[in-house]
């Protein structure tokens, strides 16, 4: 029964895509759309098979994922402790919030020109962009999460005799977790975006590069293939890593009802 339920929910998730694909397969040939403007389903599948066979697609995917992984892990290790630390004290949180707010807006794409000057075109610049995108938004969200915990809750815990460690693990972290997870989710979403932008500009391998080169030759089937790959990769990341994480935190703390 449990398996059946999961299967049916997976089917329900895939159903909208089946509708979209059918529309694509029917409408593009029907209206006879120029393949230079929008490719047919068949040509995209062909391009996919061909690029897997010659090994270029796996190489692009591998390069992109490696950059995201390194940048994100580095950023999280720094951002969460920093955010909690700054959020605990009223003084530092009021003083630093404006700074982090403006830096989290600047983070990512605005750094591409200067990152590519400092680190040269390649792995360093792109990892820096991803680190940047994740770091500032996660720190800002952690800060926000910790400082929006109602004062009464903190006072209650303190008057019940909670020490610093208990306060951290039982009030501050759980209270801020929904915000932290939201921060990670948005941060990663935009890091992924920043990755694509950076790869269009500053490298010679990766999914963004693949899209950008295809545009030069009007190969829309490669562009659409690349877009689908980017979408599917992110969805997998979101469904297999981030959504369970959110379930384990946000929903556990009763902030979202399960659909």
């Amino acid at each position, binding site marked *: 029964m449990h398996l059946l339920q999961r299967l049916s929910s997976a089917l329900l*998730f895939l159903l909208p895509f089946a509708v979209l694909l059918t529309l694509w397969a029917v409408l593009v040939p029907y209206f006879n759309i120029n393949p230079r403007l929008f490719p047919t389903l068949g040509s995209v599948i062909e391009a996919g098979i061909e690029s897997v066979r010659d090994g270029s697609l796996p190489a692009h995917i591998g390069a992109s994922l490696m950059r995201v992984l390194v940048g994100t892990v580095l950023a999280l290790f720094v951002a969460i402790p920093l955010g909690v630390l700054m959020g605990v004290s009223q003084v530092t949180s009021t003083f630093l919030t404006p*700074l982090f707010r403006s830096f989290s807006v600047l983070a990512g794409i605005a750094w591409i020109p*200067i990152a590519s000057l400092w680190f040269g075109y390649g792995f360093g610049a792109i990892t820096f962009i991803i680190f940047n995108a994740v770091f500032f938004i996660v720190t800002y969200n952690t800060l926000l999460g910790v400082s929006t915990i109602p004062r009464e809750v903190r006072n209650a815990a303190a008057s019940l005799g909670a020490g610093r460690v208990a306060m951290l693990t039982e009030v501050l972290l759980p209270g801020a977790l929904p915000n932290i997870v939201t921060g990670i989710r948005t941060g990663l979403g*935009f890091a992924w975006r920043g990755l694509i932008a950076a790869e*269009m500009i500053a490298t010679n391998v990766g999914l963004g590069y693949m899209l950008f080169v295809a545009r030069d030759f009007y190969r829309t089937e490669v562009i659409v293939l690349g877009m689908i790959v980017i979408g599917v990769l992110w969805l997998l990341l979101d469904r297999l890593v981030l959504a369970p994480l959110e379930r384990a935190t946000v929903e556990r703390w009763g902030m979202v009802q399960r659909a």
Partner: protein
Amino acid sequence: MTPFLKLWSRYVRLTARWPSIASFVPFIPVIALWWLVTALEVFPRAFLPGPAEVWSAFKSLTYKGVLPDYLQDSMVRLAVGALWGIALGIPLGLLIGMSKRAHTALWPVLLFFQAIGDIAWLPILVIWFGYGLVTMTVVIVYTVIFPVVLNTVLGVRSIHVNMHRAALSLGASRLRVLWEVVLPGALPNIVTGLRNGLGYGWRALIAAEIIVGTSGIGFMMFDARRAGSVVEILLGMIILGILWYIVDSWILAPIERATGQRWGLVSR
């Protein structure tokens, strides 16, 4: 410690009277540090120019009229894109948040298209619409809409079901529930979404200007990168930061104050 505390209490009193001071005082140590690092030549000048050089670049570019023109181009693009994004995003979010059927049908597609990301659309948008306002607007709308929709859905779903029941059992119509329960309840989240969305719409604009642009702040920065002139890149970044501050504190923060604090979600 006491002199520090005294200073801090004076600062708190000052910022309580003029709240806008709190948003730029924190930058003073940052700028001082920047000045110090460049004065000591920790990094080569060509890699990290000082505040004075950036200021003189600002003056000369403003005098030539390049900067005001680019600024105007960027702002118009952002405004047009953001308005469309909000107008489409909030109703869509309410629909998905409230209707289970709409959630089943649209949520996966929404996640997928969010996953593709605005910037991945740039190559094909350029083929479709060429280099121009349409491409930029589509990219910005695309960026703004997802945070708005996702946060609206989160806000709608975080309203306790008893609120719905209470309103319904008191005889409220569906429209009235939407207007007096769902919308106010979701408003803080919607504003958060807006704030995120605009921040990232801004970022998408920069990316679009870098990649397909012929004018705008992003274009200026990338043009400077080609010429290897760090001064103008830094100037561009600072202008982006200041502009965001203006948009955020003159437009978004008042909205947030009117919602989040009113509903008692942020303790001041």
